[in-house]
């Protein structure tokens, strides 16, 4: 073949200058491997960068070590209060997402045949902007919405983009996470959360929460210290979760009945005058009404509902009274009442009131209302907020108790189906697989005129989109500072660890800035992420360069102090044993027993989900290193109690059919004494239906397939455990 200009063309810059003398620069692969191994061992070119994990919402701080441009080691930062010097297995494993073969590498558009094709960023922006403009012109900006699982930059940029377009419809994933918990607690005490001082407590009860499954290393360490200190640690959970190794006792309970347990324990405290009457009198409003309302909630009554023996309930209440004020019910997160049942918000409210009976607020070993660090007001006009959109967040009227900072994303799905919402953006959110019934959500979201998803790998949600915008992985981007709370407030920083691996991917700040420019609202994004980060940090006496050096800075001058009575940020400025807002929303003014919506028929089991120590989210399931462990230990298997299995002729590892009206699937099952009879547990992170996720695809059952689409009254959550299933051996 002859050489000419076209056949001499090379992709390699500088190829014309290679001379034979450069042969000394060539080495075989074997020789290179040996030299490379020696180089890594010597760590001659190691770079250390402080950054934040992204495997879950804890965002633990760690130091990433990079050799020759490749991530080689992660060490939890001791000064980061979430990590406390450690990372969990998910944190280590999820870092490999950067190199995943399933990474999205280019902007995608769905073609007329319904298949995705790569397009340029310019084309993507132009076409999205044109459609946004059409929707606004035809239906107004309120026909647009955003759903995101907030991350440091995303929570700022994505929401600001939506606001700049004039839409009030920014939702978080909360409706499928902790919306009911936050909203219910807020009705009682005016704050959405507290910190149980576990390690200093004499007694702490966990309801459906497991520090050793949804791991934040500092919490595991605190639990361990509490155990070593002889604290009474009570795990209330249908599943004997992994935290039970530190527990004094496991209290198996009928799913969805935690409210009855809390009401009955409250009843015992009140009836026996074991509560802190002075604290209640000084801080509460409506106590007498609540006491009267729950006077029939005796331990015997609760036993019938919860399956927890009456004497156990009586004893637990008495033990709480004895341990108080160094005692509390831990606030939980998603667990049993973050978003699970028709009574989740009311359970959260009751838990906060129970702690009030203990008089444990801000007491050593009790429930602490700590503060968070936050950036101050920014004077630079470039950072001024866009005008407040007209109208209110969709769902505010229907679910008035839902925390406004989260909103009900599942209601947004319903509005997409109804044709009220025309265009939706999703950032770091796999709503279609994880928020409620996937079949319903697929139908609802398919009704949109415009659907844009920003992610690092294809997801069930992205599959439904018109456009998919590829983001850099969290290791390849810097983000805005993460301000956090706790006993000592802090600020931490996600710095860029790796060079951008796929040159046609972009960070979320860049994507939303450029989207805004294309949509004609670029004036609200006339700054760089670094400029904004530096400005935010200067309001707390820091700057970007100095925070990069250390990763996390704590503010000891703002540290929590025991003993100070909290200021209750409720309408009445008191702990609200009765809530006017709840009554107005159609609930009882004070929390009383509310039945779960779903009652099992004969032969059916209540379905519960939950995290596992190495897997917690659909995003972690596509990591080969984590999946390898899951496969080895059969972590995808549904759990069924030994008693139920015996009655059904099922043995451990039998292939079984798990079915209900929504779905039928088969899986090997785990027969165990570690789950209450009448309950089936399915891990909440498997069952991926996206072929593009080569590791996760088709592994395990997806719990949401069994959950009908429905929304918790008043609070707006997805009621993710209001479902029952039947189970039988294949062929039986």
């Amino acid at each position, binding site marked *: 073949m002859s050489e000419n200009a076209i056949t001499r063309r090379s*992709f390699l810059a500088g190829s014309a200058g290679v*001379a034979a003398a450069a042969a000394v620069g060539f080495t075989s692969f074997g020789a290179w491997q040996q030299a490379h191994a020696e180089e890594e061992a010597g760590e001659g070119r190691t770079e250390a960068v402080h950054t934040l994990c992204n495997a879950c919402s804890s965002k633990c701080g760690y130091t990433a070590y990079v050799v020759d441009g490749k991530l080689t080691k992660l060490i939890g930062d001791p000064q980061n209060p979430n990590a406390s010097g450690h990372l969990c297995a998910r944190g280590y494993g999820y870092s490999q997402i950067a190199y995943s073969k399933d990474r999205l590498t280019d902007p*995608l558009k769905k073609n007329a045949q319904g298949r995705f094709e790569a397009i340029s960023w310019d084309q993507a922006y132009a076409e999205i902007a044109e459609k946004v403009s059409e929707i606004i012109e035809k239906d107004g900006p309120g026909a647009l919405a955003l759903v995101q699982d907030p991350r440091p930059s995303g929570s700022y940029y994505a929401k600001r983009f939506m606001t700049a377009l004039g839409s009030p419809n920014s939702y978080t994933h909360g409706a499928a996470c902790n919306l009911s918990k936050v909203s219910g607690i807020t009705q009682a005490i005016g704050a959405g959360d507290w910190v149980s001082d576990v390690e200093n407590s004499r007694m702490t009860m966990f309801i459906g929460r497991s520090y050793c499954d949804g791991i934040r290393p500092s919490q595991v360490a605190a639990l361990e210290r509490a155990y070593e200190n002889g604290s009474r640690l009570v795990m209330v959970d249908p599943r004997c979760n992994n935290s039970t190794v530190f527990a004094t006792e496991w209290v198996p309970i009928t799913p969805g009945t935690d409210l009855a347990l809390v009401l009955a324990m409250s009843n015992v405290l009140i009836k026996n005058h074991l509560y802190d009457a002075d604290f209640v009198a000084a801080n509460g409003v409506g106590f007498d009404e609540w006491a009267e309302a729950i006077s029939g909630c005796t331990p015997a009554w609760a036993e019938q509902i919860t399956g927890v023996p009456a004497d156990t309930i009586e004893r637990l209440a008495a033990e709480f009274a004895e341990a108080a004020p160094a005692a509390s019910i831990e606030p939980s997160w998603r667990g049993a009442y973050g978003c699970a049942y028709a009574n989740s918000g009311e359970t959260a409210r009751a838990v906060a009131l129970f702690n009030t009976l203990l008089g444990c607020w801000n007491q050593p070993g009790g429930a602490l209302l700590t503060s968070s660090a936050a950036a101050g007001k920014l004077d630079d006009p470039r950072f001024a907020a866009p005008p407040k959109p007209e109208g209110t967040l969709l769902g505010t009227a229907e679910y008035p108790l839902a925390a406004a900072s989260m909103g009900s994303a599942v209601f947004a799905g319903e509005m997409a189906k109804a044709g009220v919402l025309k265009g939706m953006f999703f950032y770091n959110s796999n709503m279609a697989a994880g928020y409620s019934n996937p079949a319903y959500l697929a139908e609802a979201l398919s009704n949109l005129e415009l659907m844009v998803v920003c992610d690092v790998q294809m997801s069930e949600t992205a599959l439904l989109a018109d456009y998919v915008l590829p983001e850099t992985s969290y290791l390849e981007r810097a983000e805005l500072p993460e301000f956090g709370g706790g006993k000592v407030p802090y600020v931490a920083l996600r710095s860029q660890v790796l060079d951008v691996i796929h040159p046609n991917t972009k960070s979320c700040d860049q994507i939303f800035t450029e989207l805004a420019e294309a949509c004609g609202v670029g004036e609200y994004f006339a700054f760089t992420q670094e400029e904004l980060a530096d400005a935010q940090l200067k309001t707390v006496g820091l700057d970007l360069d100095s925070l990069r050096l250390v990763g996390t800075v704590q503010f000891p001058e703002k540290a929590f102090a025991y003993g100070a009575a909290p200021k209750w940020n409720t309408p009445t400025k008191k702990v609200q044993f009765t809530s006017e807002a709840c009554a107005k929303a159609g609930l009882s003014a004070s929390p009383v027993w509310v039945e779960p919506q779903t009652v099992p028929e004969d032969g059916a089991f209540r379905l519960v989900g939950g995290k596992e120590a190495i897997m917690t989210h659909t995003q972690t399931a596509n990591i080969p290193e984590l999946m390898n462990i899951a496969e080895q230990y059969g972590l995808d298997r549904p759990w069924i109690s030994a008693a139920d299995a015996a009655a059904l002729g099922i043995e451990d590892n039998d292939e079984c059919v798990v079915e209900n009206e929504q779905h039928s699937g088969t899986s090997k099952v785990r027969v165990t004494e570690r789950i209450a009879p009448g309950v089936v547990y399915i891990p909440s992170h498997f069952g991926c239906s996206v072929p593009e996720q080569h590791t996760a695809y088709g592994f395990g059952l997806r719990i949401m397939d069994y959950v009908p689409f429905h929304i918790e009254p008043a609070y707006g959550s997805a009621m993710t455990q209001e479902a029952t299933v039947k189970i039988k051996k294949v062929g039986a």
Partner: protein
Amino acid sequence: MEDAAVFSTLAQCFGPVGEDEWNELTESAQWSDFLAGARRLLQDNRPLGADGQRLSDLRARLPLQEFLSARELSALFAPPSYQEKSDFAARHFTGGLPDSVVPVESLHRPAHPTDPGVPAGGGYLGDAALYVRDVTDGLGLEVPPAFAACPDHLALELDLVAVLLRSGMEGPALAFLAERFGWLTAYRARLLGLDEDASFYIGLVDLIMGIVAQQEPFEEGALNGCAMDSVA
């Protein structure tokens, strides 16, 4: 010299090229020249880059049919238009799609070949990528930004063989050819699994694998010659 042109052409088939360049490359005479060069590489009993052949080494001229199926052959004789090539790349040479078959070595080699407990199928920037990047650096070349995630992209690996040949580095070219293209067996299987007709690319892969097989008798000497070299 003509062998280098064959590898450059192969590289451009798998890499991003402009419309004018592709049209020029696939123009009838030019493309016939490429196929003839490829056929000689499949037949000649000579090391890569060697000039001519001794009469005693000449074998009967075997047509490409000996190496390729009728469908692949037909596809190779009718290369795709620029639009067809671009469309195929947008659907298949793009990451994260159901039908992604990105021609990158690290994606088609086991992540941990010595550890049977770890799932097969690596990610971007595996050892193959770092190796190619180091070799490229050592030669004073630069991996273009578009290939930052994948210095072990098939287009670059083929290109590197061409560059080595043009630079009179036949031994390193042969060593590189012997070590780097084993993953194409797995890659070919992925192309075969596509719903869409990928005969053109399968045909090209078969050509490369045929050339690699033809060079086997000469590999040992080339590898021995390179093993003692050090990274520059």
